[in-house]
């Protein structure tokens, strides 16, 4: 099956995009939702600011879902939804949209990602605490097995673990432990004779990096472990149910902003990792766009990725042979090694009480692996062509046109979406909505399956934020562990030692230890960058205030003021920097905080000047891979600022 990851700005625009992709030969839909929809917020929520329609389509209610799927025959469609914390809700809206087309839920085919553990570990779009989140997943699986039998209710993602820096062993071990947590929860909800079916409906979403031989071995190891797990832990016997089914998106972490055209060959090699041997071949492949590290890909960029898959499938002979690694000692040896490592790591997770309880442990382990990966790249031990080796380049004709390099979302989308939502709320039967939400809350307090009340709320016209809000009231809100506190200290090489000396000198100048606030404004949950900056600042000898993801400008300003920080580092990867950074700076200055602000993230060149005008002291992008150098810049900046401010008052003048 051939798909590209798509979904932009509004339900109507996305619908047009889907229809045109279907006409070009795409055979399924892959729906990406914006961050407010993914985290259970309406467009008019304070946290949604700058994020509406940004990384996907905003879906607030059944009307939006109807528009999104307008003219697309849902009875024949295979729809993959990248949705997790609010998966139950989006599936409910999809079921209602199908009802409106006259299609019964039994006929629906597709996948909801619905993997919450990796949201806590890597991606950050969680909405509820781990326990209730796991309940929602188990309820949804139990429901679909009964009523939407062709649906893949969950896609266990190892993909994001690799993006967060995992080693192959960690990727295997944590995703399998995650599957165990889910299956154990579902086992309590379905009759024993249904477990085979449940097991058979669980699919995986994996990553493939550029070390494609080892990556292929990883997939073979996963399918062996999966079958073993099915037989031994859940008593599954049907070989059809035991098959390891997975889709894949190849690695984005390894894609570079420097010489982005090299990403094309990386993507091709990564695609080979998941197609070479038939015994562990992917069922569905998504390839990222070559310029993803620069911002949101345009339709032409996506077309290029689609064409890579088509060349592989239709021009090469890759699909013509049986498994080409059968009998290979090298491959078997690699697989055995990965299996040993993964089993040992799974045992550690089990000792913590399983994947839900081990979230803090796994998170800290991932932050550590990622720290090590970055250290190797900085030290030149791991070669990245075009970045830390062979960095010289002719002028690229592909990126010469700075304005057109990425697609820009219309800034009016947010306002019109909020307006449309107001109209929706005033036109619906409010009493029916209130009743449905009260019923939902009642169910949440008890133990019954939540899907029935969720579908009823969708039908009544409730919104995404209302559904999630009703559940938050019952389940409580939650902040995931950041993993940085446990990260081990970096080995003090010469560079770092020199930096520590500079920090000590700065401390004498400032009167107290340099204190940095690392903040992630908005709903963007990609925290790798922020975590690595926080850990390195700590290793350099600074006091670091890092609060994790999802902060409002007001929260960041309050923290900066109360903590008396000397500098504020903000990280945004969702493309919302144009709205959010000025909003944070405004809030800081209103609170009387004069400390300098630096920004890191996927920031296109043409956005740098406006950010600097808004008061940003420095901007860093993925091509600034040397974090120690960033730290050195910060120390220098603080040294200069300290000269202009009274030492004790640096960072916090009292408001009049």
């Amino acid at each position, binding site marked *: 099956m051939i798909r590209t990851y798509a979904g932009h700005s509004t339900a109507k625009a996305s619908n047009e995009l889907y229809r045109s992709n279907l006409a070009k030969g795409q055979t399924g839909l892959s729906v990406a939702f914006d961050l407010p929809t993914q985290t259970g917020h309406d467009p008019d929520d304070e946290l949604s600011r700058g994020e509406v329609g940004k990384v996907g389509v905003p879906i607030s209610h059944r009307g939006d879902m109807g528009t999104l799927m307008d003219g697309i025959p849902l009875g024949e469609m295979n729809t993959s939804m990248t949705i997790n914390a609010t998966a139950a809700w989006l599936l409910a809206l999809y079921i209602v949209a199908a009802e409106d087309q006259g299609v019964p839920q039994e006929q629906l085919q597709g996948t909801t990602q619905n993997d919450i553990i990796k949201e806590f570990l890597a991606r950050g779009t969680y909405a509820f605490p781990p326990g209730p989140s796991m309940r929602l997943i188990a309820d949804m699986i139990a429901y679909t097995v009964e009523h939407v039998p062709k649906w893949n209710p969950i896609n266990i993602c190892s993909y994001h673990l690799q993006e967060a820096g995992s080693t192959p062993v960690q990727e295997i071990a944590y995703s399998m432990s995650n599957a165990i947590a889910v299956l154990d929860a579902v086992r309590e909800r379905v009759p024993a004779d249904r477990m085979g079916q449940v097991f058979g409906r669980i699919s995986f979403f994996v990553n493939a990096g550029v070390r494609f031989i080892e990556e292929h071995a990883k997939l073979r190891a996963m399918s062996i472990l999966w079958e073993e797990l099915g037989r031994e832990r859940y008593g599954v016997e049907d070989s059809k149910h035991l098959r390891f089914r997975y889709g894949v998106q190849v690695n984005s972490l390894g894609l570079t902003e420097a010489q982005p055209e090299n990403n094309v060959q990386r993507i091709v090699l990564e695609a080979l990792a998941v197609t070479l041997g038939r015994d562990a071949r992917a069922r569905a492949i998504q390839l990222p766009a070559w310029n993803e590290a620069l911002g949101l890909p345009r339709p032409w960029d996506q077309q290029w990725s689609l064409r890579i898959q088509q060349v592989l499938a239709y021009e090469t002979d890759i699909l013509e042979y049986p498994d080409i690694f059968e009998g290979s000692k090298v491959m078997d040896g690699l697989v055995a090694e990965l299996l040993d490592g993964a089993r040992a790591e799974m045992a550690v997770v089990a000792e913590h009480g399983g994947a839900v309880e081990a979230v803090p442990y796994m998170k800290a382990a991932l932050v550590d692996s990622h720290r090590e990966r970055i250290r190797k790249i900085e030290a030149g031990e791991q070669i990245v062509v075009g970045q830390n080796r062979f960095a010289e380049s002719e002028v690229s004709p592909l990126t010469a046109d700075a304005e057109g390099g990425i697609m820009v979302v219309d800034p009016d989308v947010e306002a019109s979406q909020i307006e449309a939502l107001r109209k929706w709320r005033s036109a619906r039967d409010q009493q029916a909505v209130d009743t449905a939400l009260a019923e939902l809350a009642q169910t949440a307090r008890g133990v019954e399956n939540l899907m029935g009340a969720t579908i009823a709320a969708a039908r009544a016209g409730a919104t995404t934020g209302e559904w999630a809000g009703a559940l938050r009231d019952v389940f409580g809100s939650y902040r995931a562990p950041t993993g940085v506190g446990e990260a081990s200290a970096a080995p003090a090489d010469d560079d770092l030692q020199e930096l520590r000396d500079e920090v000590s000198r700065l401390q004498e100048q*400032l009167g107290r230890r340099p204190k940095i606030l690392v903040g992630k404004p908005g709903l963007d949950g990609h925290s790798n960058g922020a975590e690595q900056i926080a850990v390195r600042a700590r290793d350099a000898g600074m*006091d670091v205030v890092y609060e994790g993801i999802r902060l409002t400008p007001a929260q960041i300003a309050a923290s900066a003021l109360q903590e008396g920080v000397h500098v504020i580092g903000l990280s945004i990867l969702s493309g919302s920097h144009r709205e959010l950074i000025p909003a944070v700076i405004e809030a800081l200055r209103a609170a009387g905080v004069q400390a300098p602000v630096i920004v890191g993230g996927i920031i296109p060149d043409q956005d740098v000047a406006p950010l600097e005008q808004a008061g940003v002291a420095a901007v860093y992008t993925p091509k600034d891979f040397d974090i120690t150098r960033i730290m050195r810049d910060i120390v220098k900046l603080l040294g200069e600022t300290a000269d202009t401010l009274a030492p004790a008052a640096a960072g916090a003048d009292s408001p009049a």
Partner: protein
Amino acid sequence: MSDDGAALGARLRERDLSAAPAALNLLESTTAADRAQTAALLREVSPAALAREAPGHVIGVTGPPGAGKSTLLSALLHAWRAQQRSVAMLAVDPSSRRSGGSLLGDRARIDFDPADRGVLIRSTAAGERLGGLAWATRSAAQALAAAFDVVVIETVGVGQAETDIAELADTVAVIVQPGSGDALQFLKSGIMEIPDVLVVTKADLGTLATRAVRDLRAALRSLGAAHGPGAARVVAVSSLPPASGIDELQQALEEHRAALDLPARRLSVRRAGALRDFTVEHGEHGLRALGGRRAAERWLSEQDPGLETPALVAALEQRIGA
């Protein structure tokens, strides 16, 4: 140019909460000029300047990681704010400083409205100097108690952490996680002094929590803990919705404070702090010059009870001609 120490101190004395962040920046600073300003600041909020002890209730909260401290503090914060009481929380991270740096992230776990000017949360790293809690934390507690209704000092650990916190708080609460025997063992073996309030979290765990409460009460009895008002209390709380036990905990904290001889307690905090600061600065050698610890303590007990800690340190230094 921002406020100098005396002006910041005067603002705190007038209960101007917005002076707190700049005051803390100053209190944490180690330059000679700022230390002089700090002394001026603390003079403005000394009992002599206030003509009474600082009115805020200084509460020390400690417990092992994962015991539910942050969730509990969130619940307490909401309860205090509902009564219009201003709250300052100083979160002290005792983690080792091999690189010198520290990661301070706990404030995020305390849920509060960032626009609420009646709340201040500040994280600091301990271990900069010898002697447990940061020097600045003890000064900060004294300064903030002049302006805020409640000052919470939060730190991690059992045993030593609890002893450190007892040196600066009016009331000490130790958080106990049901199922973990640490607190019970430390209590029985005498590693831990008897805290004023023992808080068993996660009361939603049912039997496990009930057993923890029972064991702790039994331990207190066998250690011969006092009865009546102000005696050590064991309270079970659950911060999960629906929260329970928060009212009872608040009441236990209040009752302890009400039964306390506050001037005596604060005076001993100031004098012990002065001796500690003096020792950190001048070592055993300095202590010997004062004629030993006992003699120093005796001499301190004869000084004006209205003097703030830095003034006492300065007086001690004068005695040895430093």
